[in-house]
């Protein structure tokens, strides 16, 4: 792998990780409160918070490694930019799929456990 291709790959991973930590910073506090309220179990809260973080990181690596950087050193700069953009799009698709699945899961969890606690 040429240094240019490696640089493109590292930039893609860095952008994707920045997105991950932005999502984590936005959501983690309120998600923790919600899980504490619904599960009433610190282990349960830790399990679902860690699952969330692992899922986001796996989405980054699935999208990042799914993007091939196989340009020649003579290829124009914009080819690299477009490939990074395609990679970020792939990561976003994985994020979307994971977040959708996770949100459905948490919604079911909260709804069912609330009904159970109210009985």
């Amino acid at each position: 792998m040429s240094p240019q291709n490696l640089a493109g790959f590292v930039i893609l991973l860095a952008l994707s990780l920045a997105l991950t930590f932005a999502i984590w910073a936005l959501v983690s506090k309120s998600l923790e409160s919600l899980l504490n309220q619904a599960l009433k179990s610190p282990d349960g809260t830790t399990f679902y918070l860690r699952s969330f973080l692992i899922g986001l990181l796996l989405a980054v690596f699935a999208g990042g490694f799914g993007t091939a950087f196989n340009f020649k050193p003579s290829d124009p700069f914009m080819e690299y930019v477009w490939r990074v953009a395609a990679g970020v799009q792939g990561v976003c698709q994985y994020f979307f799929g994971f977040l959708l699945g996770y949100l459905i899961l948490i919604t079911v969890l909260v709804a069912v456990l609330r009904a159970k606690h109210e009985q």
Partner: protein
Amino acid sequence: MSNEQYLIASYFFVGVLSIVIGMAAYAFLRRPLAGLAGAFPNRNLASVLKKLFPAGLVLPALAGFLSVSYHSCHESYQSIIADRSYLIGKNQQQISAICFFLMLAVLGWGVVVVLSLVTQPKEPGPGGDGEPNRR
């Protein structure tokens, strides 16, 4: 290093990597799951969940690795090993598939834990009947 040597080394390296990634996810989630399972009144369910958990993360990672075929557009072995960038691209696909399958497995385990939490019977409170009747 020739392309054939690279193919052999990288194939086994990524195979081992898939197991390592699965075990890393297991190590990260093992304690909270054990704590949750420890609170289940049904000890057998807790035991089954705890024992299946490592396999339930390592096997999907391995399945992701194995799901990538080298024969997709190259017909012969010689044409596969002729192109180093094709081999590197396949390794990237394997790592991507490992992460994707593991992501699905983590979500799947979340569903299993939800179902276990929902279906567990209420523990008897103070003044209740005490130990459930086991026959």
